[in-house]
C-alpha cells in the first residue's frame, strides 16, 4: 500500500519537474567572416575537420564584413552598444587588448571557455590582460586564443655570417659591427640592414621597446609623452636613422623598398645582410626560392642559408622584443549570457584552434602553432627553427603594438619624416609628441 501511495505521489510530482533549456536557439552563434577566417574555415571544411558539438551547424551564422567597412571599425559600434552579435571575433592582438580593456570580451580561462594551460607562454601573455583577481591582486586573464605565433624578427644571411665567422647580433652595436665587417668584403651586398618603408611603425616598435621604451604602462595609461620615454623613442629612432647611408638604405633609396614584396625580393637578390620582417616570410622565401622565376636570380639556393634571430636590443638590455602580428579568437561578453552560447563558443574555439588545425597551418603556411602540443607534432623545419631560435627563448617578449590607429598614424607620419630625412630624429619625436598631446587629451 505504501508503495502504491509513493508511486502515486511520484506521478503527481512529475508534471512539476522541468529541465532548463540547454540548447542554444537557432541562429544565436555568429562569427565574423573576413579574409583570414574564410581561409581557416575553408581549410577546416576541406580537411573534413568539422565541429563535434550538437546542433552547431543549425546555430552557426557567418557575418560577412565588406573590406571597405573595416576602416570604420564597425564592431566598435556594435560592441559599444552591447550587441550580442557577433559571438566570436577574430582579432589582431592589439584589438584584443583594446576590446578587452573596454570590457567587451569575455574572459576565457576563468569562465571555462578555453584552457590557457596548453598555450606557448609568450603568446598567451600577449593575449592576456591584467585583471583584478578575487584575492585583491592583479592576475593575467586570457582574452583571446591565437592559432599561431606571428611576430617580426631579424632575418640574416647565415651563409655569409658563417663564412665570415660571425654570430647573429644581439645588440644594434653588434649588428653594426657585423655589417661593417662583412659589407666591404661582400660586394654583392648593397645594404647591411633593411626594414619596411611603409608601416615602418611595425618595425620601429620592437626597436623602441628594445631601448626600454613603452607607450602605455601595465594599467593601460598612456606614458609615451613622459620625458624619459620620449628620450628612448628618440634614441631608438636615432639608431635607425644613424645606420642610413652606411648600413641601411639612405632616404633616397627607401622608395625602392616601399612596394609590398620589395623587401623580400631585395633580400633574396642578396642586396641585404639583415632584414626585419614577419616570421612567416621565411615560408614565403622558401616558396620564392622554389619558384622557377627565381632560378638563377636568387643570391642563395637553399632556405637553410637564411638565418633567423630576435630583433636586437640596446646594449645592456637582454630582453628582445617582437611586435606580435597574430590574430586571436575572442568571445563577445554580451553573447555568452544567452543560454547555450557559452558552450557553443567553447566548442568553436576548440575546433578552430585544435592541434590538427594548427599543425595543418604550420605545414602548409609556415605558421608557428600557438599550442605546445601542436608544436610537438610539427615537421616543418622552418617552423621548428624559428620557434626554437626565437620564440622559445625566455628573453624574447611578444608584445602587441598600441591599438590606437590615431596614435600609430601620428607616430608613423613623424617617423617617416625622420627616415626620409625631412626631420632629425629629435625633431620628429618632438613633433610627434606635440601632436600626441591632443590625442592624449581626447583619448
Amino acid at each position, binding site marked *: 500500500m505504501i508503495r502504491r501511495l509513493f508511486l502515486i505521489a511520484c506521478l503527481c510530482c512529475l508534471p*512539476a519537474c522541468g529541465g532548463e533549456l540547454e540548447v542554444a536557439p537557432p541562429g544565436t552563434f555568429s562569427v565574423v567572416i573576413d579574409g583570414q577566417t574564410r581561409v581557416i574555415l575553408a581549410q577546416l571544411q576541406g580537411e573534413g575537420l568539422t565541429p563535434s558539438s550538437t546542433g552547431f551547424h543549425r546555430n552557426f551564422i557567418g557575418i560577412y564584413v565588406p573590406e571597405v567597412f573595416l576602416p*570604420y*571599425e564597425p564592431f*566598435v*559600434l556594435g560592441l559599444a*552598444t552591447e550587441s550580442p552579435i557577433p559571438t566570436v571575433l577574430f582579432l589582431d592582438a592589439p584589438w584584443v587588448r583594446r576590446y578587452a580593456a573596454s*570590457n567587451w570580451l569575455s574572459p576565457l580561462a576563468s569562465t571555462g571557455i578555453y584552457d590557457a594551460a596548453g598555450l606557448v607562454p609568450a603568446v598567451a601573455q600577449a593575449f592576456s590582460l591584467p585583471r583584478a583577481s578575487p584575492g585583491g591582486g592583479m592576475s593575467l586573464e586570457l582574452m583571446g586564443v591565437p592559432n599561431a605565433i606571428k611576430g617580426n624578427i631579424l632575418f640574416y644571411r647565415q651563409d655569409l655570417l658563417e663564412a665570415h665567422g660571425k654570430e647573429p647580433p644581439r645588440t644594434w652595436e653588434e649588428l653594426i659591427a657585423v655589417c661593417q665587417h662583412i659589407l666591404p668584403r661582400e660586394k654583392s651586398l648593397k645594404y647591411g640592414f633593411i626594414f619596411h618603408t611603409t608601416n615602418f611603425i611595425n618595425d620601429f616598435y620592437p626597436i623602441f621597446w628594445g631601448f626600454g621604451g613603452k607607450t602605455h604602462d601595465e594599467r593601460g595609461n598612456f606614458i609615451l609623452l613622459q620625458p624619459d620615454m620620449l628620450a628612448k623613442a628618440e634614441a631608438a629612432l636615432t639608431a635607425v636613422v644613424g645606420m642610413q647611408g652606411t648600413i641601411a638604405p639612405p632616404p633616397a633609396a627607401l622608395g625602392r623598398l616601399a612596394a609590398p614584396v620589395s623587401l623580400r625580393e631585395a633580400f633574396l637578390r642578396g642586396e641585404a645582410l639583415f632584414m626585419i620582417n614577419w616570421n612567416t616570410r621565411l615560408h614565403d622565401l622558401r616558396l620564392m626560392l622554389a619558384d622557377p622565376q627565381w632560378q638563377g636570380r636568387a643570391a642563395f639556393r637553399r632556405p637553410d642559408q637564411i638565418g633567423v634571430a630576435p630583433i636586437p636590443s640596446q646594449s645592456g638590455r637582454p630582453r628582445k622584443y617582437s611586435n606580435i602580428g597574430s590574430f586571436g579568437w575572442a568571445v563577445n561578453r554580451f553573447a555568452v549570457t544567452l543560454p547555450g552560447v557559452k558552450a557553443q563558443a567553447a566548442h568553436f574555439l576548440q575546433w578552430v584552434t585544435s592541434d590538427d588545425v594548427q599543425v595543418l597551418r604550420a605545414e602548409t603556411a609556415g605558421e608557428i602553432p600557438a599550442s605546445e602540443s601542436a608544436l610537438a607534432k610539427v615537421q616543418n623545419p622552418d617552423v621548428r627553427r624559428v620557434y626554437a631560435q626565437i620564440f622559445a627563448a625566455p628573453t624574447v617578449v611578444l608584445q602587441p603594438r598600441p591599438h590606437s590607429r590615431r596614435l600609430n598614424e601620428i607616430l608613423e607620419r613623424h617617423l617617416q619624416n625622420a627616415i626620409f630625412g625631412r626631420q632629425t630624429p629629435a625633431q620628429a619625436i618632438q613633433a610627434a609628441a606635440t601632436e600626441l598631446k591632443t590625442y592624449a587629451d581626447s583619448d
Partner: protein
Amino acid sequence: MTTVLWRREAFVFLGTMICSLCLFTLFLQAAFFTLWDRVSLSVQQEIDKEADTIARLLVFEFSHLSALETGIQADPQLDQLVNRLLWEKVTFNETIRGIELISRHTDAQGQHLSYSFFPLTYGDPEAERAPQKSWRRLTGPEGELIRLLLREQRVDRNLLEVVNQGRKLESEMLLRYFPLYIPLPERGAVFWGVVKVGISVDAMRRFLLLLEEERAGLRSTLLGAMAVVTMLALALGLWGFHWQGRQTAALLQGYTNLAQALESGEGLDTTTLQTYLNAQETQDIRELQELKQLCLKFGAALEGLLTPLITAQRQACHGRILGALLPKIAASEVSPAALASWAQLFSPRPDAWGEVQLDPYLGPMGQLLRVLLPAGISFQEERQPTPAILGSADNLIMALLFLVDFAAAQATPPGEAAWRAAPRPGGGLEVTLTFPGRVFDQSECQHWLRPFQAGTPAPDHLGPGLAAAVARQHGGSLTITPQPHGGLTLAFLLPGPAPAADRG
C-alpha cells in the same frame, strides 16, 4: 452502494484521490509562483532587449553625424540638424520617450555639451518642450554613470539599475546609455560622448497587469478542472468497485457461507462446496483465484480428515461404553438379554438413507444409559411409540450413542436421570435425555454444540457436536439446556417427512 464504499480499498482509493487533489493544488500554486516569476523575468528581459535594440539603432544613426566630431561646436546648421533628428525620432515613435546626446567635451565650468529632447518633462511649459542644445552639469547617480561612461566608454550595469530604479525627472521610463562612436575613415571609430535614450515601459505594464488578471482566472479554471477530473475518477473508481463486487458476489457469498458454516459448526458438505466453487468465475482477479484454489484444497483436505475423525470418535465412543460395561459384565450385573439387545447398537450398518424406525433401538439405549450412569442416580424412562423417519439409521444410532456416552461421562450423583422418547405433534420424534451433575453455563453448552469456533480450543468431548451435525443432516436439531440445580437436558429432535407439496 454502502457495501461498495465500506471497503478498505475504497477508502484508500478515496484518500489517494483527495491527496492527489491536494498535492495538485500545492504544485499548481508553486508552479504559478514560478511561472509568474519566469514570465515577469522573461518580459523584463524582452523589454530590456527591445530597449537595447532601439537605443542601439539610434546610436548607429547618430554615429553618422560625423560633423559632431569634425565640425565646429557652434555651428547653427549642425545644431538644427541634430535637434531636428531628435524631434523626429521622439515625436513620431511612441516607444521612444526622449533622447539626449552628451558630448565628452566640457566648458570651463566642467559642463558637458548636450542635445536633448524629452517632451514629457514635468513642470516644463508647453512652449519649451522642444529639442535643446545646452550645457549640463552631471549630478547624482546618473552623473556618476555618465562620467564613468565618458572615462571608460562602458556602461556600469549596477549604476544603470540604480538610475532606472530611482525617480527620474523625465517621468517614468526605461533609460539606456550607450557610448557614441563616430566612425571616420581616416581615424576609425572616434569616441564622441554618450547617447541617452528613454524607452516607454507602458506596454510592459499593460502586459503584466493582464497577466495578473489572467493568472487568477487560470488558477480557478485549472483547479475546477482538476476537481471535476477527480470526481469523475472517483465515480469511475467506485463504479469499478461496484461492478467488480457484482461480478464476484456469488463467489464471495460461497466463501461467506463457508465461513458461517465453520463458525456455527453446522457442518459442511465438502463435495457440494467443491462443486459450487468450481462453478464460480473469479473474473481474472488474482486474489480470488488464489482464494478459490485455497478453498478447494482446503475442502479436499477437510473431506479427507472428516471421515477418519468420525470413525475415530465412533470407535472411541464404543470403546468408552464397552470399557464401562466390562466390569459390570464381569460382576454379572448385566443380563445376557440386555447384552444381546445392546449388541445391535454397536453392529455396523450400511450408510444408506431410508425409512428408519428408531423404537427398537431407543429401549436398549435407555437401558444402556441406566447401566452406565454412576451409582446414586435414579433413572426414569418414558417411551412412546415414535414414527418412522427418513434418514440414515447408522448415523442416527451413532448420534444417540454419542449422547448416551456424553451423559454417562458428565453425570454426577445424586439426582435423577431421565430418558424419554416421544413423537412430535407435527411429525417426527423427540428423544430427551436428562441427567444430574454440576452446574453448567450456556456458553459451555454452545461450545459442545459448536466445537470448532475460532479462538477457542476444541472441547474434550466431540460427541454432542457430531450428534448435532447428524440432527442437522436430518433436518432436526440438538439442544443442550443446563438445569437450574445442576445437570443437563439434551433434546434430540428429528422432523417428520416433508409435506407432499415440498417434495415437489
